[in-house]
């Protein structure tokens, strides 16, 4: 009896461990938008790792796509933190994980992944040459394409825009900011009581966007730090911070802090992507006499940053055909419009911008597209590393720990790495 008892304990322990580890039980399924009835009608199933997964409007968009394409789409949410999301997707692709077929990626990830052989090329059957011609061409070549091969389908575009707080402008009597002198004048006029003419997000991983934007607007070249205009752009940011025309505190600010300060009337203007529109609209602040977008000031060149989110197909996917079907739909006029209207975001296809879309103040956004050169940002092979290094370099320059020449020398080596 005792002997039997001694043997039964290990068996029980192993049994308990098995149960705890979930062996023998079904693994957790990702959220399926397709309902059970639809599942029976679906031809094939794909799993989509999407940054919009938790949005009910996106789930509705996916449900419509499922019905239209007759495929079941399981939507999974990636990590919310940008660094962790980047690492998660890198691991999925590099390990040959087949559990995910389609993934949404940003420019940083795309630049890193496209030349590594982990992405399925997008064929001309999936996205025709005519449709490819409807995206911003410089951008398409710089980010989604490697040589002549397309690796991703952009579905949502962000354009860097100039936002102003009209209440502050009215107080200072400034009617417009059309050039660098007016921009500097705004900074001088608002320099009081903790209010600044211009504010930004200069945390080391965020400031990259603003450095790029100012270099663009000065007509400089981010890849050439010996260029006078490029140097001039960064010098302006430095001088503004040292002269208290913009707060030095923003060296620790990310977009959350910048938006909060902008809303509270601490900044008269900011440079921010168009995607922030929903945030200001939901907050009830987006109005002609409060916060709104105005024309890009001309500092020498009417160039502005653009960024997109894109769909990629995992090379290890077992459901490439269904994934391609979904991407064809997302690149189509119908798919583009459906996404834009559901999420109130700018479509990546420029022709769709001319159509009726449920996006607030769409006219000013159309103006940006027609009047500005839309510039893709440059990324190295290790984008997160170089973005962070550029940010650290910039912060040291702002704090006067290094000179402009030292900053430019280091910046050149970062972009050449």
């Amino acid at each position, binding site marked *: 009896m005792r002997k039997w008892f001694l043997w039964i304990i290990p068996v029980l322990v192993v049994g308990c461990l098995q149960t705890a580890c979930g062996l023998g039980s079904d693994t957790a399924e990702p959220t399926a938008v397709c309902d059970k009835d639809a599942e029976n009608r679906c031809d094939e199933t794909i799993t989509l790792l999407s940054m919009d997964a938790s949005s009910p409007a996106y789930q509705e968009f996916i449900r419509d796509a499922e019905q239209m394409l007759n495929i079941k789409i399981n939507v999974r949410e990636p990590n919310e933190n940008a660094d962790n999301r980047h690492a998660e997707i890198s691991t999925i692709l590099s390990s040959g994980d087949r559990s995910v077929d389609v993934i949404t990626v940003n420019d940083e990830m795309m630049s890193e992944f496209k030349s*590594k052989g982990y992405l399925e090329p997008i064929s001309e059957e999936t996205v025709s040459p005519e449709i490819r011609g409807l995206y911003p061409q410089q951008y398409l070549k710089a980010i989604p394409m490697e040589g002549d091969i397309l690796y991703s389908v952009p579905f949502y575009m962000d354009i860097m825009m100039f936002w102003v707080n009209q209440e502050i402008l009215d107080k200072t009597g400034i009617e417009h900011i059309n050039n660098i002198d007016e921009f500097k004048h705004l900074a001088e006029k608002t320099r009081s009581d903790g209010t600044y003419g211009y504010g930004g997000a200069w945390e080391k991983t965020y400031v990259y966007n603003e450095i790029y934007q100012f270099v663009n607007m000065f007509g400089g070249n981010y890849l050439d730090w010996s260029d006078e205009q490029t140097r001039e752009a960064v010098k302006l940011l430095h001088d503004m911070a040292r002269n208290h025309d913009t707060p030095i505190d923003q060296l620790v600010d990310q977009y959350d802090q910048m938006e909060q300060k902008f809303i509270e009337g601490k900044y008269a203007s900011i440079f921010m992507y168009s995607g922030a529109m929903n945030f200001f609209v939901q907050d009830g602040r987006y109005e002609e006499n409060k916060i709104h977008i105005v024309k890009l000031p001309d500092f020498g060149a009417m160039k502005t940053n653009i960024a997109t989110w894109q769909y990629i197909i995992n090379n290890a996917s077992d459901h490439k055909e269904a994934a391609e079907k979904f991407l064809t739909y997302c690149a189509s006029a119908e798919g583009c419009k459906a996404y834009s209207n559901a999420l109130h975001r700018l479509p990546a296809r420029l022709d769709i911008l001319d159509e009726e879309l449920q996006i607030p103040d769409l006219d000013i956004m159309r103006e940006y597209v027609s009047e500005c050169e839309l510039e893709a940002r440059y990324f190295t092979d290790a984008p997160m590393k170089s973005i*962070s290094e550029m940010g650290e370099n910039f912060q040291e320059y702002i704090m006067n720990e290094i000179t402009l020449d030292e900053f430019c020398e280091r910046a050149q080596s970062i972009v050449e790495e």
Partner: protein
Amino acid sequence: MKNKKSILAAAWLLVIPVLSIRAFTTLYPIAATIRNSFFDIKLLQGKNEFCGIKNYIFAFRDPKVLTSIEFTVIFVAASMILHIMMGVILALILNIKFKGQRFLRTIILIPWAMPAVVIGMAAKWGFNNDYGLINDLIRRFINPDFNYSWLIYKNSARFAVIVMDLWKDLPFFAILVLSGLQFISHDIYEAARVDGASGIQCFTKITLPLIAKNVATLTIPFTLWRLTSFDLVYSMTSGGPGEDTALIAYRITMEAFTNLNTGYAAALAVLLFIVMLIFTSLNMRLQTKMAD
């Protein structure tokens, strides 16, 4: 005899699952980390080449790592000295009998129970010049015109990180010291007082020697936790300004998961592991000496 053997076999069977889990979750990762530290691994490029001790040599030439080592030494030393000094004082206060003593002992542990990431995020706002609690208090009680951005200057950012670390873990340290204090018999103090010892003499000649071993023992885990601390800096300063508050564990995490430079991150982790081993063995020797 036979019965003993079967009991032993059953015992082994019982511990084998635990040992297997331990081997899989501890021994295997350590072995894999040591192996990886000799390889140049770039995850996305599919690069996995033997590079000898190149990663180790580079670690001592990398300015970012040198900055991280510098701050880690400052952080661990400052934090531990303050933990010991203030921890003992706090424990002595908590040992005094007064009304509300139990309540104070309970609420004092709240910061320790909070996740470091939450504390880091709160501290990021707390040290903000415009919205922060710290500057708000200074403006209310000391100088209404006070303006200072704590997290953008090297020294103040480092100071802020150390303060937040103390705020979080000091109460726990104090409670553990308090447990040591409660083992000291009151008879010893009474005897000393009868012999004419003052309060300070009681503290230096009785309390301190009797809790010294307890404090030395506590120093091991608390120092190791500081050496491997990353979450506070990650959420509070992201290692900034520049790299000035990047602790070595934070740098390892960035190399491993942001730069995907696995081999180099493994080499840094092995170096940290060695430092921790040296510290632990020195501390254990000290304890043995104290016991003798």
